[in-house]
């Protein structure tokens, strides 16, 4: 990342902030604001349970393997190894230990593979 220290002028900054707040809030509030005024079909409710188990694995996969041409899917990628450790730890221990073991094993594998 290059260090061009141009200060954002206040108007541009405020416009960017407002634009982003509006874009984010519209989506998050969209269905919640209509809640109760219509009955969600059973089928939709049942299908929505897939949301967390699709979004999170997709984020994880891209984060670990990198995106586009920078992709690295092999055992020389320390993040792949650390993710395997995290998965194993998560079968037995709770979140905090998964995070701790994840960072520790990533540092370990980065050191080993460099």
């Amino acid at each position, binding site marked *: 990342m290059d260090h061009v220290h141009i200060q954002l002028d206040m108007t541009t900054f405020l416009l960017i902030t407002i634009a982003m707040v509006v874009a984010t809030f519209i989506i998050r509030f969209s269905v919640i604001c209509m809640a109760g005024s219509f009955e969600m079909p059973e089928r939709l409710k049942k299908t929505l349970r897939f949301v967390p188990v699709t979004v999170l694995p997709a984020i994880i996969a891209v984060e670990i393997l990198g995106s586009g041409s920078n992709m690295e899917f092999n055992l020389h990628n320390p993040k792949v190894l650390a993710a395997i450790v995290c998965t194993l730890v*998560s079968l037995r221990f709770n979140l905090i230990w998964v995070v701790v073991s994840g960072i520790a094993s990533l540092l370990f594998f980065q050191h080993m593979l460099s």
Partner: protein
Amino acid sequence: MNKLIKAGLKAIFPLCIGAFPFSFIVGAISISAGMTLGQSTFWSLTVFAGSSQMVALGLIQSSASILVIMLTTFIINLRHLLYSASLSEHIKDYPLHIRALMAYGLTDEVYAATIGEVKQEKVGRHWFYLAAMGGFWMNWVFANFLGALVGSSFPEVAHYGLDFAMVAAFIAIVIPQVKSRECIVAAIVASVTGILLSGLPYSLGLVVAAITGVYAGYRMDLSSERMAATAVKTQETNPIKPLPVTNCEV
């Protein structure tokens, strides 16, 4: 109420640790993108959307127009539409201003940490949710502030691997949820699609991956139900146990 607030804070705490380095880095980069310490903190406090903030900083540095920044934010956050739909089902009895407040803080982490509890529809569950959300929000702003304060002197902070904490937290959340056949298929389809489309701009691949995965899960549901129905029919002539209908419970 106090008990619920404590439980909410406890549920979000590990995710705060996971989000801290991420927000720290966002804060650090925002300085090099031209924000002041005050602007950066205010920005995190109001926008409260990590991946969009990260991408927006890249756009600001390449002097993209405000309209492009807004559209990109919209696309990156489209996945929150599904969270909104999922959450609305369980909070529909609350007045609009409370729901608006809850929607305002509906991030990946807050959704992941609270949906299990909110789903049970116990009285006062909004305290649990608002505590988790508030805790996460304060942590987010504080980490951003620190990142903006000191992170700018370490431009390589993003390479230290600390952002992996976020990934680890996501793994810990998702693994216990992926139990049934339907959920496993949905998760695999989404991951593979996400990887294949990771080259698409603005994290658009993530949106397509989620939709594809959810669709795969839906098709799996239909076929499982058909099999269960067939098993019931067979049972009438040949009494064996019907196939169990499995669920991925959060």
